[in-house]
């Protein structure tokens, strides 16, 4: 699970910073919901179906990276919006592309914001 942004402002100066932080935070929060709905069923950290240890997307990335990077996307922080957009809109290997009617560009950016949060 990513750490959720809930910092509270303590001074006037901090208020301005916190507005930006909160909007980033709410974007990340929305990203988490989107991730849970669209990405986690394949790229989540839980077990796969019927005695598989990993979900298919996570298993595929485990094979690809051989431990060089985490297999579960939520453990990664190197997937900024442009990179994520490429995978989402073009697909990769057996993963088909997602259409903007199901995941808008803003949705993809929100997922990227969620993934960018430190663990």
């Amino acid at each position, binding site marked *: 699970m990513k750490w959720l942004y809930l910092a509270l402002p303590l001074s006037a100066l901090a208020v301005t910073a916190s507005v930006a932080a909160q909007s980033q935070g709410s974007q990340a929060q929305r990203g988490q919901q989107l991730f849970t709905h669209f990405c986690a069923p394949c790229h989540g950290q839980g077990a796969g179906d019927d005695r598989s240890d990993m979900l298919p997307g996570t298993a595929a990335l485990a094979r690809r990276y051989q431990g060089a990077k985490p297999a579960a996307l939520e453990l990664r922080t190197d997937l900024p919006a442009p990179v994520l957009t490429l995978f989402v809109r073009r697909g990769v290997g057996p993963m*088909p592309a997602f259409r903007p009617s199901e995941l808008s560009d803003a949705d993809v950016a929100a997922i990227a914001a969620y993934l960018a949060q430190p663990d």
Partner: protein
Amino acid sequence: MSVLPPDHDEAAFAAYVADLRGVVGDDWVWSGDNDMFPYRDSFSPVWNTPEEIQASSAVAPADVDQVQEVVRVAGRHRVPLHPISTGKNFGYGGPSPNVPGSTVLDLKRLDRVIEVNEARNYCLVEPGVSYFDLYQHIQQRGLKVMIDCPDPGWGSPVGNALDRGVGYTMPHFRDHFGAHCGMEVVLPDGELMRTGMGAMPGSGSWQEYPYGFGPDPAGLFAQGNFGVVTKMGFRLMPQPDYYRTGLIRVPRRRDLIKLVQHANYLSDAGMVSEIRYASPLSPLQRQPEFAALVTKMGGPSDAEMDAAAAAAGLHSWAIDLQFLGPEAATAAQWEYAKDRILSDIPRAEALDGDHFALPATEEQLENRTQPYPTAIRRKGALGVPSLGIWEIVRDDGHVGFFPVLPRDGEAVFEMQRVLGDASREYPLPPYFSAITAPLFWHSFTFQMVFAPSVRHADPEHNAMVHRAMKHMVAVAAEHGWGDYRAAPIYQDDVSASYSFNNHQLRRFLEAMKDAVDPDGIIAPGRGGVWPRRFRDRSRT
């Protein structure tokens, strides 16, 4: 390479796209290579070849009024629309159309669960509602109904049913088109129609009596091109109390004949959920001698197969049985099934499997405690959507041919042999061999699977797969085995194989298509049905 709609130049296309934008707004119309990439079929064996059928554009209306207006705009500009619901039809064409340059009519934004009725056990949904969405809706409200969910869970009840998809529970729910009850359709001229009781103003039984009065056209909208479905009702199973499993295995190859007859009885009498057939000999395929035996031309003899099974100390066939209902009823049904089969097939064995109260726990859904090797997909069996099935997808995807055969052991042996022999010339895994078990997907028939993978970077492999697909469709048809569902690039081949009396079925459908949609505004070519405008160019 951007594609234009048929009979359009750039200027005409621009005028058309401007009109679409006028209906749905600028943000919900797409065209050009980049934006249209996700509307290509990434599982296509003709990927990046001139045979790949690409759309020119896509439009995503927000509601039924906009769908009607889009259909009217397309009619004025004579552009074919290809409706999709969630657009995840991978293995059968993905979101791609039958005619190059079509506009994909993407219904994802019509995503309301309109009603789930737990007293009368039905739901009414829009096309953009996925199985995940419907399941979540039911769970969040604690409703006591179970959906029948196919793999993968990101598909939709509407899209899946309209391609006659199948799930994993009781016979009258897992045939998804068969379990639908009432639909609303935008016709090729933009008019709105409701079928069954939905045609009667004020009726409260739209999702309870599918026929209404007079001819029922609902079948025309499944694998068809007579309209855009904007609402669809489905019957739902009341949440059962209990789930029970058991395995029956039989020693000899020919025991399959009787085993199938008993399984047919149990299923048609409504006593069991989906029955999974398997060959306990499958693991022996790792031994080259056994692999050669089961794939030899003309097929092995029964005696050879029985000898191999006896030498390995394994049974020849197994069925996983699943029961849903009150605990005592599931126990009685399992006892009955055991008695019935064990008293008739010498040396048949029965093993008790997992059983528990529903809803299942997370642990039970993981299916780790079955005391024998099992072919059951546990989440599917309990109507829980998942994407776990993606673990079987190899390379860049696959394309599927699933011939329908009689629910009879002799027919299984014949298909194993005939399609096995026909497929040997292709360097592919042995989809058909002497241990291939039938799939009991649709409620009253068997199917087998031919699903070779595709590789985007290997056009030669893809071309071989494409040849193999067409060849298998043709050989199967010579034996009366037809595909149940096909990607657009194979729909003409498959449709042509349903040719009784000089293709009278197709001629009848095309006469109707000419009458209601001569310009081919709705999915021309879908299901092999072409309107006059496209017939000559597509069939030559």
